[in-house]
């Protein structure tokens, strides 16, 4: 059977960053991804990133992705595309498929960087063609260069809802409104300001009551919510749209971590069921590491740093780095991660992550 030193599952920002660290340390790494192209969601991010210079701030997401790919190529990382991993068996034997055939590869260490998937929302008409995830719309416009519709309503004001609304405008669509069930906008004010300036109305304390249409979306009815989040009769408003984008959060794609036997914790602020991990990104299964959105919904910048952390810790465990060298490298990554997790938006994630890592020491469940 094929063998490798480190198998990384998921070639998005976290997986790519981890692969680069292992390769730099002199390790042999195989990167597996179910998609036709590596990069995960990173290549859809056509906006300039935040952070500081060392986080590559001011550079568009897809350009950072191109840099990561260049580095993996230069370092000779082996990338297996169109290779969905369907299980992790005993002794770190990874089962995957390729070209309709079942294959296996055995690794000494595994890093799971499988990311997250969009949540759905249930309401009458939610199955009509034209109702899709905000990420789906982003994929269609930024990767495939096709508009999913002409008149769009966005549901959800987190960073995904806000930034995809902006990108839909850039692609030439008319985003008629963005609605948010909570009384306040969830994502960055600067994203919201951009779309307000472009004439997009933002309705907080509103939700979708139903979507109307025969064969596809023809309109949406939104309704106001009171302080108890109950619909207020009389506030129903019909908006003519042909597309409804749903941006109501992401959930980690944790199937492989479950199958491998990792212990989980339920952390709502990080997106749901998260595999427990320590400051080395190692799970309760020795030799199995995790990084990126799988370990809590954040952003591409933190995914890359966590990938680096997992890669360095993994290399250390294989003896490729001395404890001192590894500590030095990890400290730098932690400093950058901590810088990203500051301020009113980052603090909550920092605290949730701290509690998650404490659990590895046997702390009480977060709840």
């Amino acid at each position, binding site marked *: 059977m094929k063998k490798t030193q480190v198998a990384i599952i998921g070639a998005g920002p976290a997986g790519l960053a981890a692969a680069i660290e292992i390769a730099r340390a002199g390790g042999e790494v195989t990167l597996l991804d179910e998609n036709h192209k590596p990069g995960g969601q990173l290549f859809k991010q056509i906006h300039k990133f935040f952070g*500081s*210079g060392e986080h590559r*701030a*001011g550079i*568009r997401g897809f350009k950072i992705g191109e840099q990561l790919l260049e580095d993996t190529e230069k370092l000779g990382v082996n990338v297996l595309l169109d290779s969905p991993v369907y299980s992790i068996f005993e002794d770190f034997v990874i089962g995957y498929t390729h070209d309709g055939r079942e294959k296996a590869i055995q690794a000494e260490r595994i890093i799971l960087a499988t990311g997250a998937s969009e949540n759905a929302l249930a309401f009458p008409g939610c199955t009509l063609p034209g109702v899709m995830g905000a990420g789906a719309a982003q994929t269609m416009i930024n990767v495939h260069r096709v508009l999913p519709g002409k008149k769009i309503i966005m549901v959800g004001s987190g960073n995904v809802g806000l930034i995809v609304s902006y990108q839909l405008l850039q692609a030439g669509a008319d985003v008629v409104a963005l609605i948010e069930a909570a009384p306040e906008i969830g994502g960055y*004010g600067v994203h919201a300001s951009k779309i307000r*300036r*472009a004439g997009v109305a933002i309705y907080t304390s509103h939700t979708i009551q139903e979507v109307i249409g025969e064969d596809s979306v023809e309109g949406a009815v939104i309704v106001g919510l009171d302080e108890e989040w109950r619909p207020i009769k009389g506030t129903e408003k019909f908006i003519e749209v042909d597309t409804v984008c749903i941006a109501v959060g992401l959930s980690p794609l944790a199937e492989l971590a479950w199958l491998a036997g990792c212990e989980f914790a339920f952390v709502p602020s990080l997106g749901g069921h998260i595999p427990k991990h320590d400051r080395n990104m190692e799970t309760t299964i020795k030799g199995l590491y995790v990084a990126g959105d799988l370990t809590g919904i954040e952003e591409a910048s933190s995914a890359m740093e966590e990938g680096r952390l997992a890669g360095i810790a993994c290399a250390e465990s294989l003896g490729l780095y001395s404890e001192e060298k590894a500590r030095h490298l990890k400290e730098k990554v932690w400093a950058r991660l901590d810088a990203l997790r500051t*301020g009113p938006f980052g603090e909550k994630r920092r605290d949730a992550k701290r509690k998650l890592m404490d659990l590895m020491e046997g702390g009480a469940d977060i709840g």
Partner: protein
Amino acid sequence: MAKGIKKTGIPSWKELKASPGLPDADRLEEGPVAFIECVQEIPCNPCEDVCPFGAIEVGSPITNLPKLYGKKCTGCGLCVAACPGLVIFKVHKNYTDSTSLVEFPFEYHPLPKTGKTVRCVNREGKFVVEGKVVKVRNPKQFDATPLITVEVPKKYFLEVRSIERKRWG
């Protein structure tokens, strides 16, 4: 404008005035100057990095709101293109006796042509006044963030922050 950024996506005048990124009244009278409308603490400092004159300070932690040192600012506009949030503008209050210039980022297609009359909008995207396009600059260095400068009647220089996306006149 009273409700603020968390509720409406637009900073209120109170939030703007509390931001250290606005030039003071004296500096506004003297030529073009940056106008930084950054009112939320997010980890971000490209504006500080890009300014060649040290006129913007974020410091540590990088969530600090950027502080503008009006005296050092030459109004070059590099920060306007560098801000990932697209919330830095350049204003030239006394361009003429009756008109001001406002420079803003505009990442849309198509770009208006110099000399054309355009419909200028405020932070809510609402039309306020017609203006003339004085300059459109889109060098490679800006990485696809073109900057448009419009000339508007002076009383609108604090309001106009973009143009309508569809009609250019």
